[in-house]
């Protein structure tokens, strides 16, 4: 009985809110459909981005260009078919001005067609396969691309006397992206590479790491989705690869700030290239981290959060530029070429590719004041996605 009453109350509240909402803001609301995996194995992505989006609106108010941004959050559970349906419903039923979120590559791709057909901007806040922005002229990305983060790693490795690298990547889009972009660059610079790909649902890294250790490389390049990074790191150490002098390198996913603490000391010494570290030394970042932690019970923001934060900002800036015009083409045009100072440093939405251009930092995982951080020690400024850059030439 009690449950039922609650349900009724909830339903009543919702419909009331909806009625009021549509009455009060019918003219001056810009709805943003935020589709994220809030449940399932990629829920942490959803939580980070959702929190960052809320933080941005709380800090900056919700009115831009005369329009009040209204967020409609939907959970796609990491399931591409659901993403597609939700995107379609948001466009058709809720008449959203912008679609945003998209935790994984297939999810972003699933919505691409909807964005094109409906002429609605799709702001990708997480998915990182290079090709995504080519799937629709309405896609704008505020996260990063894996080649963007992986190629600088090859440069760094070549400069630091690493001749032979063994790559271990998860066998799906982003992993393959990371592997090929790194390997191509590294080989072009005279290094040798051996590779294995690990199945996405892999319970045990032992056989792959065994191969790696027998290859006796100078460094192990690794990309795994952030959740299983910890397991990988531990087995890396268990197998004694660290003691054998093998460096652990790769894009920053494996030492995700969100879980770095629970990975523990085994992560110390890992060299990674990425676009954001919670330890990034700037005033903007310090303010961001402090506010984020305060609003989320001490949870550290990670690279997902910063992309969500900047994504909202890109939407807001675009609205300002168009003076509240929510036409999709106008919004995308306004987003192109946007240049902002983000907590991660300067960022630019490439007017040609609608992809993000940003600094890539070389970091080393270290312990500071009893906490683990990825400490930046070198900068490669304003890196474009190398895959699309190569295509243009």
């Amino acid at each position, binding site marked *: 009985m009690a449950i039922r009453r609650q*349900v009724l109350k*909830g339903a009543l509240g*919702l419909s009331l809110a909806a009625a009021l909402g549509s009455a009060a803001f019918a003219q001056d609301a810009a709805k943003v459909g935020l589709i994220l995996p*809030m*449940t399932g194995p990629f*829920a942490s992505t959803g939580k980070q981005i959702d929190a960052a989006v809320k933080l941005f609106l709380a800090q900056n108010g919700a009115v831009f260009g005369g329009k009040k941004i209204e967020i409609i959050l939907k*959970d796609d559970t990491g*399931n*591409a*078919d659901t993403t*597609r*349906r939700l995107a*379609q*419903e948001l*466009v*058709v*039923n809720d008449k959203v001005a912008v679609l945003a979120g998209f935790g994984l*590559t*297939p999810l972003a*791709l*699933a919505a*691409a*067609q*909807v964005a094109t*057909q*409906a002429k609605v901007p799709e702001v990708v806040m997480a998915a990182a*396969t290079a090709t995504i922005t080519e*799937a629709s002229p309405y896609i704008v990305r505020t996260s990063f691309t894996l080649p963007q983060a992986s190629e600088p790693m090859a440069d760094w490795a070549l400069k630091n006397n690493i001749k032979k690298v063994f790559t271990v990547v998860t*066998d*799906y*889009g982003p992993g*393959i992206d990371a592997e090929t972009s790194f390997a191509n660059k590294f080989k072009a610079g005279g290094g040798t590479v051996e590779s294995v790909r690990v*199945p*996405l649902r892999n319970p045990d890294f032992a056989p792959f790491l065994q191969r790696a250790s027998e290859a006796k490389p100078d460094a192990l390049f690794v990309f795994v989705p952030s959740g299983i990074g910890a397991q990988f790191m531990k087995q890396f150490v268990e197998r004694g690869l660290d003691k054998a002098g093998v460096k652990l390198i790769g894009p920053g996913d494996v030492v995700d700030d969100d879980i770095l603490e629970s990975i523990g000391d085994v992560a110390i010494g890992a060299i990674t290239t990425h676009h954001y570290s919670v330890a990034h030394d700037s005033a903007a970042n310090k303010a961001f981290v402090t506010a984020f932690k305060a609003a989320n019970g001490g949870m550290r923001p990670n690279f997902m959060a910063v992309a969500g934060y900047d994504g909202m900002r890109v939407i807001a800036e675009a609205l300002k530029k168009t003076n509240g015009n929510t036409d999709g083409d106008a919004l995308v045009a306004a987003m192109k070429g946007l240049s902002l100072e983000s907590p991660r440093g300067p960022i630019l939405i490439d007017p040609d590719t609608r992809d993000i251009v940003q600094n890539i930092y070389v970091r080393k995982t270290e312990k500071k004041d009893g906490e683990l951080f990825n400490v930046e020690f070198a900068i490669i400024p304003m890196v474009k996605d190398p895959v699309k850059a190569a295509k243009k030439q």
Partner: protein
Amino acid sequence: MSHLQDRVRASLQASRRWHIAEIVFWLIALGSFWAFPRHLLLMNEIAILALFALSLDLILGFAGIVSLGHAAFLGLGAYAAGLLAKNGMGDPVLGLVFAMVVSGFAGLLSSPLIVKGNDLTRLMVTLGVVLILHEIANSWASLTGGADGLQGITINPVLGLFAFDLFGKTAYLYSLSVLFVLFLVARRMMNSPFGLSLRAIRDNQLRAAASGVPPSQRLALAYTIAAAYAGAAGALLAQTSQFVSLDVLDFHRSADVMLVLIIGGPGYLYGGMIGAVVFKFLQDTIAAFTPQYWMFWIGLFLVLFVLRGRSLIHGGVKLFMTRLPWLSGRGRS
């Protein structure tokens, strides 16, 4: 022509006569198109799920085969239709037929694994097959797009006339039409001598064999047909979403469809469809209140349902359905 012969004929005829409730059911399904224009996408998903559950009903409800891997054929059909469209043949009906042939053929090939062995072996083999397919689809990225899904599917207008739109109008009517046609075929089949022999095998395999019914042959055939039906559902999924992802081969697809059929009740063809409506409605409602944990409520629902709720719910359904003479004495629990 004796009086008794007339009565026999009448009884046999009665078992396949259309009941008013059936007609009402389909009218409602069609009428929903105008009644709920905001929910056409969801309704399209329901129609596809209903077809998938209907396909499971053919083997579970009518032939008694327990499968944990029915998604294998859904996935094959989806990829078959998707790949065909990607390679320039975007006619939806062509894709549908192609998907049914591919899935049906796969069903035929794997049927020897199914017809022999006990329930446990069947569970294992069906689960194993779908897992292998999932791995293949994942690894063979050059063909399937791997974990990124199959991109770039363009579907031509249905019959060259009705283009797929964002609102899901064409999608729903197309899926509903396919569901209806395939339902008609299934209904006819299940009232044929072949359908009767399947029921015989399900009821009592020992007696079926002792009555001259070859169980392996019939089960293999039923399995093939069901696979083709699942392939059709997969094709609809691929065509109406113009996208195929690895998810079509995921375990939860097989589990969900089983749940759908159990909710509606197996063995009378409408179970899958009623179940699909209830399931999607539940999913949507629960997801609206506790988006994070609807899986928990579905699980709880399942447990309670199997423990005691079934007789309760089916009691209601049966009360309604006992009017259908051809349903008499069907409910297997």
